[in-house]
C-alpha cells in the first residue's frame, strides 16, 4: 500500500543520517525499557517496578559495584532499579502531556483557521493569554491549589503546552485551507466537519508530528524539573527521575553518582529526542524525498 511505502521511505532517509539514526535508536531503547519494565520487569533486573526498595540496614549511599550497577542512594535504594523504573514513569507522563496538549491545540487551531473571522480572533486571543503564562509559577500555583501530585502537575503542563500547538496548527491549517482540494471537497458536497477531519487535520498532522517529537525531549526535562522542586506522587516510593535527583541532592558532594545517573538519563533522552526530531523534519521534507 502506498502509505506504508511512505513510512518505509521516511525510515530509510532517517537511517542515512548518523545522528538521527542514533537518536531514533536511543529513543526506541528507552521505550523498550519502559515497556519491559511494565510487563516483565524481572527481565531487566527490576524487583519492584512501582516502588524504590529501601535497605535500611545499609542506608548510606554506596558507589557503583557489581551488586549495585549504579550504586545506591539514600536510604539504601538500588539506583539502577530505581532509574529503570523511573524511565517508565517519566516517559508515560511525558507522552500523555504532549499528546493531550497536541490534541487540544490542534483542535483549537484548526477550527479557528477554518472558521476564521471573529471566531478565529477570539480563539487566538485566548490562546495568547494561555501562551503568556510562565510554566513554573503557574505549576507552583496549581500545586498549591490542587495539590502536588503528578496528575495535577500533568494538568498544569498540558494547560501551558497546548497554545503552542494551537498556533502552529492554525498556521498550517490556514495554508492548507487555500488548496484546491479543499474547494473541490466543498464543491462535492462535503460538509465543514468532513473537510476539517478528512482534509485539514491529516495534512496538518505531518508537520505537527515533528513538533511533537521535539517537544517530548523538552517535556521530560520540565517534568523532571518540577518533580525536583517538589511535585510528587501519592505513592512516596514511586521512582521518578526528578525525585531521584532531589532525594539524592544532599549527598551530591560525597556521593555524586546519586545525582549523575538520573541526570544523565534525562539528558540522553532529551538529546536523542532532539536529534530524532531534527532528523524527522528533514526526512519529511518533500524535497528530500525524491
Amino acid at each position, binding site marked *: 500500500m502506498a502509505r506504508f511505502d511512505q513510512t518505509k521511505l521516511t525510515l530509510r532517509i532517517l537511517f542515512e543520517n548518523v545522528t538521527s539514526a542514533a537518536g531514533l535508536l536511543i529513543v526506541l531503547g528507552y521505550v523498550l525499557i519502559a515497556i519491559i519494565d511494565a510487563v516483565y520487569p524481572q527481565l531487566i533486573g527490576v524487583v519492584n517496578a512501582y516502588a524504590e526498595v529501601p535497605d535500611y540496614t545499609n542506608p548510606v549511599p554506596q558507589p557503583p559495584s557489581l551488586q549495585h550497577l549504579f550504586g545506591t542512594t539514600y536510604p539504601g535504594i538500588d539506583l539502577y532499579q530505581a532509574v529503570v523504573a523511573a524511565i517508565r514513569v517519566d516517559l508515560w507522563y511525558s507522552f500523555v502531556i504532549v499528546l493531550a496538549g497536541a490534541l487540544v491545540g490542534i483542535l483549537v487551531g484548526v477550527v479557528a483557521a477554518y472558521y476564521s473571522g471573529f471566531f478565529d480572533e477570539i480563539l487566538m486571543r485566548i490562546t495568547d493569554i494561555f501562551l503568556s503564562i510562565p510554566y513554573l509559577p503557574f505549576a507552583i500555583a496549581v500545586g498549591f491549589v490542587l495539590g502536588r501530585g503528578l496528575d495535577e502537575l500533568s494538568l498544569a503542563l498540558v494547560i501551558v503546552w497546548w497554545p503552542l500547538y494551537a498556533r502552529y496548527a492554525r498556521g498550517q491549517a490556514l495554508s492548507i485551507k487555500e488548496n484546491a482540494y479543499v*474547494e473541490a471537497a466543498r464543491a*462535492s*458536497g462535503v460538509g465543514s466537519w468532513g473537510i476539517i477531519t478528512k482534509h485539514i487535520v491529516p*495534512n496538518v498532522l505531518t508537520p505537527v508530528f515533528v513538533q511533537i517529537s521535539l517537544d517530548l525531549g523538552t517535556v521530560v526535562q520540565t517534568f523532571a524539573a518540577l518533580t525536583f522542586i517538589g511535585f510528587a506522587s501519592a505513592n512516596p516510593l514511586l521512582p521518578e527521575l526528578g525525585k531521584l535527583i532531589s532525594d539524592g541532592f544532599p549527598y551530591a558532594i560525597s556521593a555524586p553518582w546519586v545525582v549523575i545517573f538520573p541526570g544523565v538519563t534525562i539528558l540522553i533522552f532529551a538529546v536523542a529526542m532532539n536529534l530524532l526530531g531534527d532528523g524527522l523534519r528533514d526526512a519529511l521534507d518533500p524535497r528530500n524525498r525524491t
Partner: protein
Amino acid sequence: MKGEKVIGGTRYVHAVDEAQLTIGENEVVGLVGESGCGKTTLGRLVLRLMEPSKGTAFFLIPRSSIDRYRTLTAGSKEARTIEREYSIYRFDRRKMKEFRKDTQIVFQDPFSSLDPHMTIRAIVAEPMKAHHYRPKDEIDSKVSKLLEECGLGEQFLEKLPHELSGGQRQRVAIARALAMSPRLIVLDEPTSALDVSVQAQILNLLKRFKSERGLSFLFISHHLAVVRQMSDEVYVMYAGQIVEKGETEAVFNSPAHPYTIALLSAIPVPDPTTKREKILLKGEIPDLVRPPGGCRFHPRCPSALGNCGWSPDEAIGSLSDVLASSGFPGLSEALKSRDCRIIDDQTFEVHTSESLDASQVESIKRAVAAKKDNQSNFALRAVEDITSQSDTTGATIRVRLTVPLVPEFTGLGTRHFVACNLFPRGSTGQGESNEFGGVEPPVRDGQH
C-alpha cells in the same frame, strides 16, 4: 451579479462588475480573459463557492419563469418568490445538497486539487460518500468504471497523487467531477498547466463526455485557441466586466470590441510565415481596487472616445503636456505638480498669476483639438469645454469633461453582443442585450 472580495475590511477589490451569464443545456460556454479579469471569481460565484455582493444566479429555471422574472420590479413579492425557488444564493441546506450534486468543478492546478494523503480511489469516491450514494457496495465498481472512462487503469486505484503525472491527475479530477453525474461542470483553466499533447488528450476527453452525457461546461481559460475549440458561446472579460459575448465563431471571426481585437491579434501563431499586424496594447491590466471609470478598458484602448470614462486625473497629465508645447509653461507646471483644484468628477480648475485673454483660451482649445489624436493624449477627447475667468490675482482656467457613459450591450448579429461606446445602443438596429435574439436555444436552465 456583483462579486467583491474584502481585504482587511476597508478596501474592496471590484472583482466582477454587473456580469450576466447564461448557460444552456448541453452547451459549452467559454469565459475568456487575462489574469485579474474576474473570470475565476465569476466561476466560483456560479457554483456558490463565493458569495456575491449583489445579484442572483438561477439554476434549472424554466424559460417561462425567467421571462416573467425579467418583467418584474426588483424586490417585488413575485420576484422574491421566484428567487426563493431558483436562486442558488437562497437555497436551503437540502436544495444546496442537490445543487452540489448537479454541479462540479475542475481546477487548473492538478497538483493541489487532489489531497496528497488520499488514494485515487478515495478521491473519486468522496463525492459519492458525501451524497450517500446507494447501494454502497457499488461505489467501488463505479469508481473503477469512471477511471477507466478517463483512461486510467486499475493500477491507479491505490496510488497517491504525487505518483501521477499532471495529465493523469487532471483525469482523476475529471473522474471525480463526473462521479455524481452532474449537469454543469465549471472548468477553471483545466489544461493550462499541461503540455500540448496532454492537453489535446484531455480536451478530446472533455468533448466526448459533453456529447455522450449531455453535460454543460463553463470553460474558463486565458488560452483563446483552446476556448475556440471547446465552446459554443464565448464571453470576453476585461478587468471584471464582460465586454463582448456571443456565438464563438461570430466573436472570433468578427470581433468588435477593441480589447477582443487586441487579444486575438496577440495570440502567437505557430506559423512563421504569417505577418500579422499585432496590436500592442500600452499599459498594464488595471488594479481592481480602484478600477478606471466608465469602460475599464479606456486607458489602453486604441479607439477610445471622449465619453469612455476619462477622469480629471487622466486628463490633467495630457493637458499639461499640451500646454507646455503650446506656450503656456506656467499652467503646464501647475497642472503637472497637481497645483489645481478638482471640483467634481467632470471638472477641474487651475490658476495662473498671469492674465489670459480670449484669444489665448482659443489657442489652448486649438492645441487640444490638434493633439488629441495621439493615443497618449486620448484623454483630451473628453474635454468638452474650456472657460477662463480673470480677476485681480490672475486667471483661472476651468476644464469640463464629458460625462462618462458606461457602455451597454448592443446586438451585432443573431448571437453577438458587444458593450462598447463605439457601438452605441440602438445604433446597429439589432436587438438589445438580455436576450439572445434570433434562434433561441432550448434553454431550460439559465443562470442569470
